[in-house]
């Protein structure tokens, strides 16, 4: 699974690419956490546009990153999920605590609005 990081003000945008299962979540987690901890960011956006598959291991990974952002007083937003990912996301009940947006710019605007 590929990851590309971009910082825009207090928002870190992590663009993920590939299949988000247990194996890939284990590899992704330390990279993402180290970068977030060493950044000035409080908010995290996961750009899921290039994620072709996700199972409940991905949901576990998202919950962990939500907790990390919350510890910094920030929020987590998922952007650009396809219909399969959105189905699992809604099934998990996570939409009650994690925002989702159609585009990355919508996610950034939502978070910058909250400073």
């Amino acid at each position: 699974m590929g990851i590309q990081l971009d910082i825009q003000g207090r928002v870190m945008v992590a663009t993920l690419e590939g299949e988000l299962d247990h194996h890939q979540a284990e590899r992704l987690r330390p990279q993402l956490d180290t970068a977030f901890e060493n950044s000035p960011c409080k908010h995290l956006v996961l750009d899921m546009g290039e994620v072709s598959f996700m199972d409940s291991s991905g949901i576990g990974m998202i919950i962990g990153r939500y907790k990390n952002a919350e510890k910094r007083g920030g929020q987590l937003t998922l952007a650009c999920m396809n219909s399969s990912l959105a189905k699992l996301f809604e099934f998990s009940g996570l939409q009650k605590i994690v925002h989702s947006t159609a585009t990355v710019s919508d996610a950034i605007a939502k978070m910058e609005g909250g400073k």
Partner: protein
Amino acid sequence: MNNQLKIEMAALAENVSLARVVATAFIAPLDPSVGEISDIKTAVSEAVTNAIIHGYGGNTGTVALDLFNNGREITIVISDEGVGIEDIASAREPLFTTKPDMERSGLGFTVMESFMDSVHVISTPGGGTRVTMHKKLGEHSKNE
């Protein structure tokens, strides 16, 4: 047309994607919808991940994936010879997990039950676990 396929794989996390690919290729000739492919891939991923993480917990072992179809009726069996499940009813509860430190969501069985028509679990503590899932594919065109 009826068909069957059996593969055995080492209990390694990187083999979960292989199991998904095999399941997808097996059902492809039946022209499943995109949603059905996604549901079956996800259910297989959950069951094989459970076998590797919970059944073997990092120890060496083998996970078997058996695929059958009787017309559009798909049966998928995932079995391991790992530690087994002490309390199957609790394991099937939403959000139940024995490994919260690994950021497990505890949704694996719930996802399988929701995305497949039926899920049957047989497990013997110390003897392994066998998960049997069924799904009947709809009568629709490939492009639906």
